[in-house]
């Protein structure tokens, strides 16, 4: 087969601008070959090069005493007690999931697992963050069901528990769902391995599955807007094999422990091309690959296809010169092939040969580093500024109870039991707090400490006020892990936005990142890596800006982990923090007034810091029976969630709370549904009340004794200045737990 001639059309088809192409020609001093064009197209795609985001990402705080590995590796790594460390990373798989939800989501989980175990860490938890359009549309239900099944099946088969996540629904995601997958692994810090090729003469081996034609140009696909033709991309979506993944996991960990290899990297986005080029650039060396040696699945594959295939469950390993046989023996033990395909060279060139002929020859460092960097124009959309300054026209006549029931029935707020019941959350037998609480918690065997994990983002806030929204995302994730008793340690982020070439989108991106950076700085949670996903656009427009944060927290004692739900009648109920008239961007306005607008609640980071200190210290001293973040849906929904109990509790608890003295100037609806930050609801045994109150006083956290928990199956009673709610908790439970199954026809 002869390669096509390089024409301006072909260059355009590869998503390269004429300026970028000119830069390539200048770098090479000649016209690129067809495989070279493909390589540049992949590595200079937004997905691989971060060409629109790099200058902004550099503003994130990335250091701290707990940071073992910051951004730039396959995953970030934070220090834990006892010589342990935690490796974690989040990544998007939005575009593949939009056209093939099951495989798109499954391979998203597969890819992020490989990023973690190539650091030498054993994966111990998966999380996700999902966005869909409203469930009233059949297409959205199809995508939602397919994605959940894909994540569930892959995690179950590979034997890694799915410990948590979040799902949200909004019209902006119809046609462009978001599927972000996060993996958390643990390792001994001394066993950490980095993906930098070194040692001239060392051998490159392809380990795992053979290379097929699936997923060619996935990275470029992820860097363009979704169109009506995107459905035709379906054959480009990779197909996952979790059982091979499991073998690859065990083989990789054994190879790393063996000392026979110097580097290992997943052949993920842009496959062999990105893994080999990035490992070479990190190590400051060249590589030479004989493409005819790469094991292929189909006959007649060209160098271009071999370089750009995104076939799943493949690793690129750099073995010490004299250890190829040992590497092959370990791979064979796990029933995997390990084929030498090239070597590390000293001339810094990225070179590929095909049947004895050089088909690719590019200066390696420049291939990775010389991608143009853009500083796009940023300008807020005036419509957003207008929306922020507005309020719903006429308040409708929802009673407090009707409003609460409407919120509990809204899929964004309702129980996600339908989702997490399809995920294996207990495999590995280390799950301390399963999905359904504020954050997932797991133990590390033979150690006292525990790890809390959570993904978070409220895109409504980010859309209306990207800076405050960015801050809120980090603050809420930190609050969530703190509610379990864990001290927030650090984050990974997955920044999902529309096209950065549009000033309104780039403004959202820049401001949201500024908010994330400020919050991380104040809360002491550095950014250790992540992923940018631009071009999340469909014919109906860009998605809501969705910068998802994956937070890691450390509990000094796993057995002191605090659940979200009340556990005993007679316990005291406390509201921490201040409630202000902040209905902007609230679920109440959205659900009951059909209005998404107003100024979202502002985050006072110093207040958040004190609240976190209170939650962590109180948990360490064993003061709380439960602790729950108060955010989306406000105090009304938070109190209801505390009372309704966990998903597998047979009944909820009654609750008797008098809110008349709390934030006395607010109307009932403001009091119940404002989403002011810096708040939480805790319950404690009566004999702990004095200690709880003293701790709040000591740390300067506003605390309001709201009432007491009632009997099992009792009445949920809130006294307000101009009204009341008095309803059996069973009714709230019925609404909350049936909202999603009812819409999914279960």
């Amino acid at each position: 087969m002869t390669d096509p001639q390089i024409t301006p059309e072909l260059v355009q088809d590869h998503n390269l601008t004429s300026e970028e192409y000119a830069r390539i020609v200048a770098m090479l001093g000649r016209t690129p070959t067809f495989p070279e064009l493909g390589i540049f197209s992949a590595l200079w795609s937004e997905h691989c090069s971060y060409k629109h985001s790099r200058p902004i990402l550099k503003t994130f705080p990335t250091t701290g005493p707990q940071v073992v590995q910051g951004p730039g590796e396959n995953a970030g790594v934070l220090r834990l007690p006892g010589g342990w460390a935690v490796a974690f990373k989040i990544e998007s798989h939005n575009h593949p999931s939009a056209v093939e939800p099951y495989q798109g989501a499954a391979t998203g989980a597969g890819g992020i697992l490989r990023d973690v175990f190539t650091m030498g860490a054993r994966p111990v938890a998966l999380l996700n963050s999902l966005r869909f359009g409203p469930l009233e549309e059949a297409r959205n239900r199809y995508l939602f069901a397919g994605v959940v099944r894909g994540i569930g099946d892959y995690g179950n088969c590979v034997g890694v528990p799915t410990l948590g996540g979040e799902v949200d629904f909004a019209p902006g995601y119809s046609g462009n769902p978001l599927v972000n997958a996060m993996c958390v692994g643990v390792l001994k810090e001394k066993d950490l391995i980095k993906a930098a090729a070194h040692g001239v003469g060392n051998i490159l081996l392809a380990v795992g599955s053979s290379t097929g034609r699936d997923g060619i140009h996935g990275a470029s696909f992820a860097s363009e807007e979704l169109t009506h033709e995107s459905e035709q991309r379906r054959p480009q979506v990779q197909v996952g094999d979790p059982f091979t993944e499991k073998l690859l996991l065990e083989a990789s960990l054994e190879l790393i422990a063996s000392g026979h290899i110097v580097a290992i990297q997943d052949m993920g986005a842009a496959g062999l091309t990105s893994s080999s080029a990035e490992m070479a650039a990190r190590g400051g060396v060249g590589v030479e690959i004989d493409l005819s040696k790469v094991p292929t699945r189909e006959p007649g594959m060209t160098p271009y296809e071999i370089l750009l295939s995104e076939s799943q469950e493949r690793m690129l390993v750099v073995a010490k010169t004299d250890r190829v046989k040992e590497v092959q023996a370990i791979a064979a033990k796990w029933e995997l092939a390990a084929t030498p395909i090239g070597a590390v060279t000293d001339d810094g060139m990225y070179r590929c040969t095909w049947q004895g002929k050089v088909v690719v020859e590019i200066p390696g460092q420049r291939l990775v580093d010389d991608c143009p960097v853009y500083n796009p124009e940023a300008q807020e959309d005036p419509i957003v500024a207008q929306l922020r300054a507005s309020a719903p026209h006429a308040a409708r006549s929802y009673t407090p109870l009707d409003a609460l029931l409407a919120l509990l029935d809204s899929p964004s707020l309702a129980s996600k039991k339908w989702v997490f019941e399809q995920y294996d959350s207990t495999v590995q037998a280390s799950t301390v707090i399963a999905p359904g609480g504020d954050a997932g918690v797991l133990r590390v065997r033979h150690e006292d400490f525990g790890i809390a994990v959570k993904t978070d983002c409220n895109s409504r806030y980010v859309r209306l006020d990207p800076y405050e929204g960015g801050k809120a995302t980090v603050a809420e994730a930190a609050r969530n892990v703190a509610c379990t008793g864990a001290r927030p340690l650090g984050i990974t982020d997955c920044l999902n936005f529309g096209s950065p070439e549009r000033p309104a989108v780039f403004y959202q991106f820049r401001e949201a990142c500024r908010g994330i950076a400020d919050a991380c700085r104040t809360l002491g949670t550095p950014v250790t890596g992540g992923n940018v996903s631009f071009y999340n656009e469909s014919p109906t427009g860009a998605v809501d800006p969705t910068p998802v944060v994956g937070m890691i927290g450390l509990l000094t004692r796993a057995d002191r982990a605090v659940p979200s739900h009340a556990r005993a009648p007679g316990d005291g109920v406390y509201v921490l923090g201040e409630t202000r008239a902040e209905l902007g961007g609230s679920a109440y306005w959205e659900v009951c007034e059909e209005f998404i607008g107003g100024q979202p609640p502002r985050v006072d980071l110093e207040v958040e810091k004190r609240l976190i200190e209170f939650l962590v210290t109180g948990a360490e001293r064993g003061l709380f029976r439960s602790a729950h973040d108060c955010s989306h849906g406000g105090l009304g929904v938070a109190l209801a969630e505390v009372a309704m109990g966990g998903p597998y509790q047979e009944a909820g608890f009654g609750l008797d709370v008098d809110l008349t003295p709390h934030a006395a100037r607010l109307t009932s609806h403001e009091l119940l549904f404002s989403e002011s930050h810096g708040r939480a609801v805790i319950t404690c045994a009566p004999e702990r009340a004095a200690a709880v109150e003293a701790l709040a006083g000591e740390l300067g956290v506003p605390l309001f004794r709201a009432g007491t928990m009632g009997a099992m199956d009792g009445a949920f009673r809130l006294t307000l200045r101009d009204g009341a709610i008095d309803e059996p908790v069973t009714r709230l439970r019925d609404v909350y737990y049936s909202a999603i199954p009812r819409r999914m026809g279960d």
Partner: protein
Amino acid sequence: MLGICNGFQILCEAGLLPGALMRNARLKFLSRPVRVRVEAADTPFTDGYERGEELTLPIAHGDGRYVADTETAALLEANGQVVWRYVTENPNGSLHDIAGVCNAGRNVVGIMPHPERRNAQVLGGQDGARVFLSLEARNATQHAGDMRAVDGRHLRV
């Protein structure tokens, strides 16, 4: 021999246990805690329990619906080969609410729920622990007469 979840499926397919495990009645993977009752305390894996004791154990399976022909089912019931039964709710549509069975010789046992995932207080409970401690105690007694206190009581062997 003990088979848990996939292990139970393998024991059935290998012919070491009667019956088979089919797709869950609701056709979805299901991961949640369930209640089971110990129906037989005379196997090596259950003799640390009392017959009739109720336990909370997690399940995590897509193919956990136990089926057997009428004759086999009747035989299982008559011989006391049903070792665990779902109570309160049958999560997957299993025949006779069966969660676990043993062979006629009572030395091969299969169970769909996961006792090993609930064997410590930090994991939310230790209802599953005695499945393994039963065996350990039996072994220990055979070899060294070493009795262990578990959950504040001595194991009956």
